[in-house]
């Protein structure tokens, strides 16, 4: 088990290395000169030359890459061309916001999606099933930003039930240890701060979680419907087991296998797909920052953030595989 995990982590090294090459080439293939993007259209040639030299943009690409890689190995991801802030630092500042948002969205999607999908499968072809299936189709088809704006308009601007934006009320004097605001509030026992951070997660979480919710509900329904037709479910029924035990032990465990894979995929998508939601709710996560970095050709930020995200993606994948092994003995690693 431990060996399996270590092997998988070791396997990530070549993947990330390859990715760093691709990324390095890709950001440099973006049209436009970084020094000019940074200094503006009317900058004079001297200052452009100065910036170009300072960041080594005129050196041969291979040399630039090797220097970047050398720094990476020591854990140095460089610093932003725009702000001078270290990439690692700005990542650690913004990444927790996005993770919190993605987790809130995922929690919503999983806690609602699995039961709803299960019920739909149990009611195949009846009204409940039809409602769930058409509802989920609507959910998949609704653009995230549209839903985000709609939710904000109704629940924040009109009804005033929930905050319109930001991660926490500025009037709360919260201590921040990890930048995961909910976690910080719990760690420091500042309950009002934790609660306030959670309240700020509701609307963006709903907006971001709707598509994964719809997808998880559909996958669960299909999977449960299939398992209900399996011979071993009939065997369980022939034993006179209670319906609850049959559902929990014999149906759900088997049906969850494809759902776990879907949840993993969705988790990865949420991390990189939160940009629009973050923008609508001024959430100050990585999405917006990364978006600006593309606009301004902030090479170190782009490379660093995307590498970080790839690493997280790989780790989520590993978690999914481990969860799979927990559920299904046939793929369990010895």
């Amino acid at each position, binding site marked *: 088990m431990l060996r399996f995990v270590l092997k998988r982590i070791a396997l990530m090294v070549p993947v990330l290395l390859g990715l760093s090459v691709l990324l390095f080439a890709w950001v440099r293939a973006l049209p436009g000169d970084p020094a000019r993007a940074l200094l503006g259209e009317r900058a004079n040639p001297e200052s452009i030359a100065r910036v170009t030299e300072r960041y080594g943009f005129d050196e041969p690409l291979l040399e630039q890459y090797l220097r970047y890689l050398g720094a990476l190995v020591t854990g140095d991801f460089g610093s932003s061309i725009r702000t001078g802030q270290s990439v690692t630092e700005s990542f650690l500042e913004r990444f927790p916001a996005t993770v919190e948002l993605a987790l809130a969205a995922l929690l919503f999607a999983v806690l609602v999606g699995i039961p709803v999908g299960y019920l739909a499968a149990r009611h195949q*072809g009846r009204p409940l099933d039809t409602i769930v299936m058409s509802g989920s189709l609507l959910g998949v088809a609704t653009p995230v930003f549209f839903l985000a704006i709609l939710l904000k308009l109704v629940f924040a601007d009109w009804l005033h039930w929930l905050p319109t934006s930001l991660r926490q009320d500025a009037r709360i004097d919260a201590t921040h240890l990890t930048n995961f605001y909910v976690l910080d509030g719990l760690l420091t026992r500042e309950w009002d701060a934790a609660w306030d951070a959670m309240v700020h997660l509701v609307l963006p979480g709903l907006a971001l979680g709707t598509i994964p919710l719809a997808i998880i509900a559909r996958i669960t329904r299909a999977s449960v419907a299939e398992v209900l037709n*399996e*011979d*071993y479910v*009939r*065997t*369980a*029924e*022939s*034993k*006179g*087991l*209670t*319906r609850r*035990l049959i559902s929990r*032990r*014999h149906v759900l*465990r*088997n049906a969850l296998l494809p759902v776990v894979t879907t949840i993993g995929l969705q988790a990865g998508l949420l991390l990189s797909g939160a940009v629009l939601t973050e923008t609508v709710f001024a959430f100050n996560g990585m999405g917006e920052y990364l978006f600006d970095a593309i606009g301004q050709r902030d090479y170190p930020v782009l490379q660093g953030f995307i590498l970080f995200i790839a690493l997280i993606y790989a780790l989520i994948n590993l978690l999914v595989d481990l969860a799979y092994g927990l*559920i*299904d*003995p*046939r793929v369990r690693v010895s």
Partner: protein
Amino acid sequence: MNAGRRDNDQPLLSVRNLAVTFQLRGQHAAKAVDDVSFDIRAGQHVGLVGESGSGKSVTSLAIMGLLPRRGVRVSGEVMFDGTNLLSKSRGEMSALRGRDISMVFQDPMTSLNPVIPIGIQVAEIIQRHFNASKSAALERTEELLARVGIPDPRRRLGEYPHQLSGGMRQRVLIAMALACEPRLLIADEPTTALDVTIQAQVLEVLKKLVADTDAALLMITHDLGIVAGLCDTVNVMYAGRVVESATRERLFAQPQHPYTGGLLESIPKLDSPRGAPLRPIPGSPTQVLPWSEGCAFAPRCGNRTEECTARTPDLDPAGDRHLRCFNPLSRTAAEARR
């Protein structure tokens, strides 16, 4: 063979005019079982034979109450111990299944849950019906596994189905079905999916456990060899109906329905000369007429007369048996029928 156990006059299970119709949305209603009647007495071993698609499995699922509720119409009577199972509620049936009637299915590869240890899968039926603790149930499971001939049963408790061979899995399913010592065991072609050499072993195990627990047995099969070695009486099904029913001795000595005769002739015999042709029943089960237009076997029958396609025969007493035929193989039976 089981004379001592047949003291009670009322049969344990009495199936009367059982009919099952599948009505799927947008399709024609299909009658899979039509007017099936037979009895099983306590401790008796009864065979139900017939070719593929004749409705054997559907009959057994109807008795167990395991047919899907939607799109299926079941009528007739299934009297078990004096009450009609077809009018029992879902909860009553679930309390009875596994405890009073249980079932072994055809395919051991798919009938066990792949993600649950086999120990738990056997123990859960004991926990359910005997209110036993988990550890007590597991202890009893270990005993049961030993009794069905699974070596090193303690270690096997924690193993998963994919770690067991087909024969071992079927033994687990047999242990499971007999765990609560039911009064009736329905075995639906329990050895069809196994290698020939394993078939005999598993059949021995089944026989032994059924004898030990005094359970009555409904053996569903298309293998007349199994029937010959196991059953007291035999019901032969064709196209959803019982066409002949008799004691094993009478049926094998003197089959009366042309279909039964065909079944017996199609068994290769040890004493027939080498190279002698097998004698399959002519035609195929797809050439089946519904019973509403005469005898369903008529298109394949050598004894067919005009009467066979004009009227539908009933299952009537005919001397030492029940028979659904106008022109049986021997005249004596024909006379007895009139």
